[in-house]
């Protein structure tokens, strides 16, 4: 038979419950009261606008390629002068997990995680948002290209391949695994 112990825990639990009964209410009744979001809160992705109210997206699609969930879909067209034009910057808000990878990846600081927490919609269509429609992409601010010198000239693909082949030749022959040589 189990050793008999005086059930102190029961009274402890009851004491705590009793204290809780009279504690001040900590519930925020959402639609009536709102919680001030902390500085670091991050919700849906939004465009960062500069002081003129203009976006800074270059249409480089790095964010699109970074997103693990394929949330972002950027439709870019390029004209003859190689100017980019953003037709749509589609963002599926309903499926975004707000991880912030796209924001981190964007080299131009064109997007940020917004503070809009009210992401419930009545219509399914509203879940997909077009953040930029039919606008010209910003030209990325480029530095002057350094003048090409002999040393810094990039090695051509073929040359690089040959070099690698030469150094690796002895091992290949010893192994005899190379199909071309046999």
């Amino acid at each position, binding site marked *: 038979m189990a050793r008999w112990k005086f059930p102190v825990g029961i009274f402890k639990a009851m004491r705590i419950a*009793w204290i*809780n*009964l009279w504690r001040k209410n*900590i519930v925020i*009744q959402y639609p009536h009261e709102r919680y001030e979001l902390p500085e670091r809160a991050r919700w849906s992705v939004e465009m960062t606008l500069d002081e003129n109210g203009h976006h800074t997206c270059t249409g480089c699609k790095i964010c699109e390629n970074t997103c693990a969930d394929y949330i972002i879909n950027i439709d870019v067209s390029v004209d003859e002068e190689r100017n980019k034009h953003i037709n749509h910057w589609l963002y599926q808000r309903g499926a975004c997990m707000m991880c912030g990878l796209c924001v981190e990846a964007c080299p131009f600081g064109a997007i940020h995680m917004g503070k809009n927490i009210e992401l419930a919609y009545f219509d399914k269509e509203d879940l997909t948002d077009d953040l930029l429609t039919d606008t010209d992409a910003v030209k990325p601010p480029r530095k002057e290209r350094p003048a090409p010198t002999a040393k810094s000239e990039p090695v051509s693909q073929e040359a690089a391949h040959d070099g690698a082949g030469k150094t690796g030749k002895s091992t290949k022959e010893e192994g005899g695994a190379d199909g071309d040589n046999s």
Partner: protein
Amino acid sequence: MNPWATGILHTLLLIVVMLLNGSLIIYMLRKVLGHLHLRLGPTELGPGGILQLVPDIVKLLVKEDRHPGKTDRWLYIIAPVIVFVPALMAYIAIPFSDKLIGFDVNLGVLMLFGFLTVIPLGIFAAGWGSHNKYALIGATRAVGGAISYEIPLLLSALIPIMLTGSFSLKAITMAQTTSVWYWLPAFPAMIIFFICSIMETNQSPFDMSEAESELVSGFNTEYSAMRFGFMYLAEFSNNFIMAAIMVSLFFGGWSLPFINPNTMGAFAPIVFIIKTYLVIFAFMFIRGTFSRYRVDQMLAFGWKKLMPIALVYTVVVAFFVKLISMKTGGGL
């Protein structure tokens, strides 16, 4: 007046009292549990959310009464009635005051417990008839719990009966107006009665038969609409009845200390109801504090702890009552 008409009127009155009670207890449960868990409970409809129950009842009334296939049809249909009717009938034996009592039988306590004992039958019928494994497990658990806890419950209720020498709830209450309230001399009996009432009314920490996390909703899983409403209401009505029995047996019924019971008049029922609600509050407090027992723990607690304690205590009290009555020549 036509006896049939009076009978029907009385029944309607009972139903109204029961409905009011049930709604009040449901509201109270939500509020008390809410605040115990640092929540608020209902707040939107009416002051403090008190009207929340109206849409709830409307919802239950207008919902489709779904009847799952493969049920044992008659059992399925009759089970809510078996649960509901005893819970309703038990009201007639509760002494709200010395005049306001439906039917003062001299075996009132036995009659009340007799009604309450029928309820597990209804629960079992519901579980069996539903053709659902969760419902069946819940029902067997309810019956197992009822068997193991009703014996200590009755034994502990025997103590005030022995002290008074009467089975009538009214007589027990009257006896407490002249002496102390019985919870003082019969403290262990009061505790045992309290624990067993929690079991009897299917509340946490002994809510085995409808353990939501394991059994969906236990015996009433397959019930919807007003059939479920009846079961739900009966549960809260039982809550009130057990609390009322406890007040009558141990806390002096409608009486107050140092006040002549004959001068209470209209206040007597109010005092009784306030006391009952305090006991219900205690039930809810326990319910909001403790988590559920395991089934074997619950049965072991009932059979190995409560039952021997209740038995020994009853024998001891019986011995002393006999001793005193022999000395004084009858009566306490």
